[in-house]
């Protein structure tokens, strides 16, 4: 190798290179192909030598939000390769979510929040502010916490919370040992326990240990509190023993019992409203999913006599709906669908359903689609990005009336009320999610809507011969309605409220 080139590369490495030398290096590389070869060869060698002799491993850290399970396999492979390397970003393009717990139960909760979390949803880091009522939070670590309002509790990580005030009972299985609850002045570290904490706004705290032990740290000192013991610690950190009172804290089974009773009430109230709804003259079609026995392959509509509006169930199985005992159809396999027929033509339509979307893993997830894609076609579906889409085909044009993202990964697996209004008179499309108007889009063109042969949960047109694109819903549906008129915002809000699985 050219000695001059070697010297220039060394000087550059050492940071002692002068401007004139940089210019010389540039000239050598530009004018002499063999110098370029030597430069590249030496560059690669330097890297090899750093790797093999450098002592410290090169450790690229991939930034981004932590994901819990997937990187483990990848990281294990890398560790096996002898490299220090940790992936914390989700795979590009694949769905990811931020969270540390799941909200699994709620009993008459009144939230101090603009958008209260729904049951079944993933809870990200942050505050849970309850004015009243009780909730059950399951941390990803396995720890379960029942929080009784009024309470202000912050999720810090998958195994740690911060309590500003309120009453909580924590159940910590062995795999979540070390579960920590902090307050402004205390730190409770679980040592395999069930314990209760009551913290008033003034900072006075009570710790009750019902099982195992809790390590209590306050004012720099640490002590263990054993089973059956309780302590009252004032804001100044002075502790004195009191008697433990398990009755004072709601248990898992009590919460379950009470929320089950509440669910029964809600189910019954919805049933009454559903009976009223089926007599609504604006209805084209209504499926309550309730009338059929579980062996039935027919979905009866609101009409007493048989009609082509009764759905033929193909593939989809009966499953549990919003409440225990409520029937739903589950769409999982690519062939699952419900077919019906309607001969009407409509100026306006309102489509309404309760669905539990379990995955958005396909390009399109059909809610209700007319066969084909021609003049008057209506395609109501969810896209892979999680948008709710109303595709309308006019005489010579088509348009997708899309919402912003509705289904993020943390929204999956919970019951959602979807309602879309095509209002020809007001010349707009309105999308509602859980009774809330989320977007309003002006009509692009004028057309009459024709249903014809229609499918729920899929799309009924093969691409070639018998080859179908996979466009099925991945999830459950337990109520569906088509109105031949635009419903008003307050009516849609009321439909949501009477049907919401929990408050």
């Amino acid at each position, binding site marked *: 190798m050219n000695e001059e080139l070697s010297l220039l590369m060394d000087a550059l490495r050492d940071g002692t290179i002068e401007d004139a030398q940089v210019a010389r290096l540039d000239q050598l590389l530009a004018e002499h192909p063999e110098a*370029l070869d030597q430069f590249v060869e030496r*560059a690669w060698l*330097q890297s090899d030598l750093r790797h*093999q002799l450098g002592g410290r491993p090169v450790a690229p850290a991939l930034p981004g939000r932590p994901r819990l399970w997937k990187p483990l396999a990848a990281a294990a492979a890398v560790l096996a390769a002898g490299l220090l390397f940790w992936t914390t970003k989700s795979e590009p393009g694949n769905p990811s979510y931020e969270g540390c717990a799941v909200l699994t139960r709620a009993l008459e909760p009144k939230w101090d929040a603009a958008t209260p979390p729904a049951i079944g949803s993933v809870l990200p880091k942050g505050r849970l502010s309850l004015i009243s009522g009780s909730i059950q939070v399951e941390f990803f670590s396995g720890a379960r916490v029942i929080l009784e309002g009024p309470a202000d509790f912050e999720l810090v990580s998958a195994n740690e919370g911060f309590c500003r005030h309120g009453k909580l009972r924590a159940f910590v299985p062995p795999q979540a040992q070390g579960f920590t609850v902090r307050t402004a002045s205390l730190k409770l570290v679980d040592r395999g326990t069930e314990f209760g904490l009551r913290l008033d706004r003034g900072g006075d705290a009570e710790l009750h240990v019902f099982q195992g032990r809790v390590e209590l740290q306050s004012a720099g000192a640490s002590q263990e509190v054993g089973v059956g013991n309780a302590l009252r610690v004032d804001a100044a950190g002075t502790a004195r023993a009191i008697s433990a009172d398990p009755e004072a804290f709601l248990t898992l089974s009590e919460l379950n019992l009470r929320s089950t009773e509440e669910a029964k009430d809600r189910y019954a109230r919805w049933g009454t409203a559903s009976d009223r709804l089926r007599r609504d003259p604006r209805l084209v079609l209504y499926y309550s999913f309730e009338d059929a026995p579980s062996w039935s392959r027919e979905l009866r509509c609101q009409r007493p006599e048989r009609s082509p509006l009764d759905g033929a169930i193909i593939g989809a199985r009966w499953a549990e709906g919003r409440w225990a005992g409520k029937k739903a159809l589950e769409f999982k396999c690519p062939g699952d669908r419900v077919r019906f027929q309607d001969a009407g033509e409509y100026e306006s339509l309102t489509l309404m359903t309760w669905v539990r979307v379990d995955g958005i893993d396909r390009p399109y997830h059909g809610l209700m689609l007319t066969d084909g894609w021609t003049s008057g076609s209506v395609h109501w579906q969810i896209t892979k990005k999680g948008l709710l889409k109303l595709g309308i085909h006019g005489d010579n044009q088509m348009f997708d009336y899309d919402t912003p993202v509705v289904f993020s990964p943390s929204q999956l697996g919970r019951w959602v009320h979807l309602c879309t209004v095509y209002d020809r008179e007001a010349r707009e499309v309105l999308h509602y999610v859980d009774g809330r108007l989320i977007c309003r889009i002006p009509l692009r063109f004028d057309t009459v809507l024709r249903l014809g042969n229609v499918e729920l949960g899929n799309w009924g047109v093969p691409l070639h011969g018998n080859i179908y694109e996979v466009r099925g819903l991945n999830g459950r549906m337990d109520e569906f309605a088509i109105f031949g008129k635009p419903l008003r915002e307050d009516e849609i809000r009321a439909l949501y409220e009477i049907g919401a699985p929990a408050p």
Partner: protein
Amino acid sequence: MDRGAEFLRLFLQNQRRIYGLILALVPNGPDADDILQETSAVLWQKFDEFEPGSNYAAWALRIARYQVMAYYTTKRRQRARLSDETLDAVVERLASRPEREDARAVALDGCLADLPEEDRRLIELRYRGGASVVDVARKSGRTVEAAYKALHRAHERLLQCMRGKLAPGNA
């Protein structure tokens, strides 16, 4: 294949080449490692844009090159720098080399073992200890000029040995 696993496979197969580009353009110290980290992060973020089956090394080296240029701009460590054309040429040449990194590692192990004692000591000083040429001179009892020459000879021996071991037919 899983995208994360695919990313790792490609990155690990090319990381020495990528680091080589950075080391050749950036002064010794923590900066080169920082740039490698940033580069790996960008590669990861943009991995969706990488077209499977195309030349990963070329794609990754271009991104590394931009990270180096961004470093030049922010740090202003170097008043003068190599021209864009030269950088392009370096990237292209480095990307077009066909050797596999694992084969290079095996070859280098053999070549280091065959290296004369004194050359090996110089290489160790420079790469294991991270010594500057001035430090190498002091520690090996040479003038700075002699140290440059001695380092050049040691590298030259290694490169010749590597060429022999990596030549087609010897793999």
